[in-house]
């Protein structure tokens, strides 16, 4: 039986939002370098309320991890996207407060499709 052990103290993935922040930083830095830019001033992300990611924790993780990278001085703006859907029974769009949809709030039908709420995207960056 083989055992694969990840190194102790490996921060990547230690806290859930840390691994997401790592992915976010890697993507931002990669895009910045590929575009021939020197550094990042700001990053705007969209986080859906049903994505499972907590904005405060993500911000905290980002602020810690950005040190020593070309995103060191970058601010992170988080646009939180509500959970919304479209009901095929009553043909209407709707938004809910919860992180999930059980039924259409207008007609109670279960014939709906989730439209927004699962986003976990970088939208744009300001670079120099």
């Amino acid at each position, binding site marked *: 039986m083989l055992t694969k*052990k990840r190194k102790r103290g490996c921060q990547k993935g230690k806290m859930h939002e840390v691994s997401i922040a790592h992915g976010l930083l890697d993507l931002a830095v990669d895009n910045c370098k590929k575009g021939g830019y020197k550094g990042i001033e700001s990053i705007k992300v969209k986080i859906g309320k049903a994505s*499972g990611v907590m904005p405060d924790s993500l911000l905290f993780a980002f602020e810690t991890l950005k040190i020593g990278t070309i995103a060191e001085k970058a601010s992170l703006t988080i646009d939180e996207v509500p959970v919304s859907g479209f009901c095929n029974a009553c043909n209407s769009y709707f938004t809910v407060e919860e992180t999930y949809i059980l039924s259409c709030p207008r007609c109670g039908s279960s014939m709906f499709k989730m439209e927004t709420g699962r986003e976990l995207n970088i939208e744009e960056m300001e670079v120099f």
Partner: protein
Amino acid sequence: MKVKVVTNILEANDRIASENRKIFDDAGVFVINIMSAPGAGKTTLIEKTINELKGKVKIGVIEGDIAGTDDAIRIENTGVPVVQINTGGACHLDANMISEVINDLPLKDLDLVIIENVGNLVCPAEFKVGENMKVMLLSITEGDDKPLKYPLMFQESSALVLNKVDLIEHTNADIGKIKKDSMSLNPNLKIFEVSCKTGEGISEWTGWLQSLVR
């Protein structure tokens, strides 16, 4: 200057997951990723599955735990190939972790790989690792409010195995509510009621699994 990016943050993980999936597909292996809270019975369900499908489906297992090899040792004792991943603190398996061990299983000799994820009702649901499907295990002793408290797990899974049904008289859990709420979150969810202790329902679960593997 402003640069428009619009990229999914989990793109790197998803890319590695697709690469894993190709390796599994090329070897003709079906892969399930089992998730649950700690103590719901993932390892026991895997043991029961291996025993029930002995001689019918060739199984390999990837065990995921923060630390320790207890689960892998249990699986090793069933005689199937097994690899243990110790995440060292990460609360879920990701595609990169699977890619590091994928070639340590004799994939060409296997029909089915079962990945046992880290015990956690939150994070595993968010990460593709290269599986064909996610399976959620919920023991009825955890309570019947779990679907609405942890919706993503139920939405991301193709099947829900309700374990420890032999203990129903000792709890206030309403299995009907669990099923109703789960199906509302995910109308395509296949639900199995089992007891790994008594063996109730296990053959229905393994019969379905076998039909997917063929």
